[in-house]
C-alpha cells in the first residue's frame, strides 16, 4: 500500500486499496453509467467531491450529520434472527428484540417462504404472531412477503411456465400465462393483507415487486390499489426487485406506461399512482466494480428517484443492493458510507 492510497472495497466485499485519482475516476464512471442508463441528471461536481470525501473519510464507520437521521423499514426483518441466524425464537419475540435491543424504527413479520402464495395456506398460523406482536410492540409492525409470480407456474402452480414457453417461441402463450398468474397473485396478496389488517398490522410490505419481471411488478401495483381501496388505513410499502424492470412479458402497461424497462425514478411514480405510502428503491451492485463506482451510480439513481417522488423513498441497502457489496456479511465500513451518501446526497427518506 502506498501512503496516498485509501482502503475501500470491491462490489463482492473484498478489500482493495485505491489512489485518490482512481476513486475519483470510478465515481465519475459510476455517475455517468447511471445517467446514461436512466436518462437522468448526473451528480454535480460538488456532490461528487462530497462523495469522494465520504468514501475516504478516516474511521472505520461514518455517520450522517446530526439531525439528518432517517427511519428504517425491513424486508423479512423478524426472520433474520429466527430463520436466517437460526436462533430458536418465536417471531413476535424477534420483533421486540428489533425494537428494544437493535433500535429498529419498524419491522416486518414474514414467513420462511416469504411469498404471498405460500402464506395464504397457513394464514391462520401467521395472524396470531402478528396479534401477539401488536400487543407487545410500540413501533409499527408490518407483514411482508413477495408477489413471487413464478410460484404460480406448473407443476407447483396453476398456469403454464412462461420460462419454458419463451424458448419455444410461444410468445403469446407465455404472455397469457403471466397475465393469468397476475390475477392469482393479486387475489392472494389482498387476501393476506385483509387477514393481517384484522390482526392489527400497521402495514403490508410488498417486497421485491418485479422479481419475475413486468407482470410481477404489475401484480404488486394492482394489489396495492385493491388494498388501499378495501383498507385505506393500512399502510403499504412497495419495494422493487431491481433497478430495472425486466420485460418478461414486454407489453404490460399501468396507467398508460409500459412497465418493462423502468428505472427507479419512474417506478416510484407508478407505486404512487397505485396508492403506496412508501417506495423501496433498488439499485443493483456490480461485484466486478469498486465501491466508489457502485455507490456513485446508486446515489445518482436515488437522487433522481427522490426528486421525482411525492412519497417517502426507502432505499434498499441489503447485501448486493444500494451500493452495498454482494457479501453475506456486508462490511460495516462501506455500509455506513453508503448510508451517509444515500441520505446526504441522494436525499433518501429512509432505508
Amino acid at each position, binding site marked *: 500500500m502506498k501512503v496516498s492510497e485509501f482502503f475501500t472495497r470491491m462490489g463482492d466485499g473484498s478489500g482493495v486499496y485505491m489512489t485518490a485519482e482512481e476513486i475519483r475516476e470510478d465515481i465519475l464512471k459510476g455517475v455517468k453509467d447511471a445517467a446514461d442508463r436512466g436518462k437522468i441528471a448526473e451528480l454535480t461536481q460538488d456532490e461528487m467531491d462530497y462523495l469522494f470525501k465520504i468514501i475516504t473519510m478516516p474511521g472505520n464507520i461514518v455517520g450522517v450529520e446530526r439531525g439528518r437521521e432517517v427511519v428504517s423499514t425491513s424486508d423479512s426483518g423478524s426472520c433474520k434472527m429466527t430463520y436466517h441466524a437460526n436462533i430458536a425464537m418465536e417471531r413476535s419475540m424477534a420483533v421486540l428484540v428489533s425494537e428494544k435491543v437493535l433500535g429498529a424504527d419498524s419491522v416486518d413479520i414474514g414467513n420462511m417462504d416469504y411469498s404471498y402464495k405460500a402464506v395464504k395456506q397457513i394464514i391462520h398460523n401467521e395472524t396470531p404472531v402478528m396479534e401477539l406482536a401488536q400487543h407487545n410492540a410500540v413501533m409499527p409492525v408490518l407483514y411482508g412477503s413477495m408477489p413471487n409470480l413464478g410460484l404460480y407456474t406448473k407443476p407447483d402452480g396453476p398456469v403454464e411456465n412462461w420460462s419454458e414457453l419463451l424458448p419455444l417461441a410461444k410468445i403469446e402463450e407465455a404472455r397469457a400465462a403471466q397475465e393469468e398468474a397476475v390475477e392469482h397473485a393479486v387475489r392472494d396478496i389482498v387476501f393476506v393483507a385483509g387477514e393481517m389488517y384484522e390482526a392489527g398490522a400497521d402495514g403490508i410490505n410488498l417486497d421485491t415487486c418485479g422479481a419475475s419481471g413486468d407482470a410481477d411488478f404489475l401484480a404488486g401495483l394492482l394489489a396495492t390499489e385493491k388494498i388501499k381501496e378495501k383498507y385505506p388505513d393500512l399502510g403499504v410499502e412497495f419495494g422493487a426487485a431491481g433497478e430495472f424492470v425486466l420485460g418478461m412479458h414486454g407489453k404490460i402497461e399501468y396507467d398508460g406506461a409500459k412497465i418493462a424497462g423502468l428505472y427507479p425514478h419512474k417506478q416510484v411514480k407508478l407505486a404512487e399512482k397505485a396508492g403506496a405510502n412508501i417506495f423501496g428503491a433498488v439499485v443493483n451492485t456490480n461485484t466486478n466494480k469498486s465501491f466508489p463506482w457502485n455507490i456513485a451510480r446508486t446515489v445518482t439513481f436515488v437522487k433522481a428517484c427522490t426528486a421525482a417522488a*411525492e412519497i417517502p423513498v426507502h432505499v434498499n441497502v441489503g447485501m448486493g443492493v444500494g451500493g452495498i457489496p454482494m457479501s453475506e456479511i456486508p462490511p460495516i465500513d462501506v455500509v*455506513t458510507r453508503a448510508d451517509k451518501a444515500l441520505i446526504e446526497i441522494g436525499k433518501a427518506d429512509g432505508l
Partner: protein
Amino acid sequence: MAHAVSSCMSGIRTAGDLVLRMQLAKSMKIDAAKQYVADKLGVKPIDLSDSDLMAEIRAKNGLGRSFDLNKSPKGIEAKFNIARILGIKINSVELFRGRAGLNKEGA
C-alpha cells in the same frame, strides 16, 4: 444494526417509530414527518433524534421506552397514547378497543 447506529433514528430509543408512523400513515417525506411529530411533542425536529431528551418526553407522555420503568405504559398501552398525541388511527389500538368492548356504551 449498522444502519441504526450510522444513519437511522433508532426507533423507540428516540422518536423513530413516531416518524415512521407518519410516513406509513400519511406518506410524509422525512422532513415533513419529523416536523409533524416535533410539533405534536413541542420540540424541534433535530431534538427527535436525541435519545436523552426523548427518553424524558416519552416517559412524560407514556409513549413506551426501550427499558420500561415499572408502572409505565408498554406495548398496546403506549400505542393508545401515541395515537392520541399524533392524532392518527392505529389499527391495533382500534382493534383492541373493539375486542375489549371499550366502544360499548358505558365502557
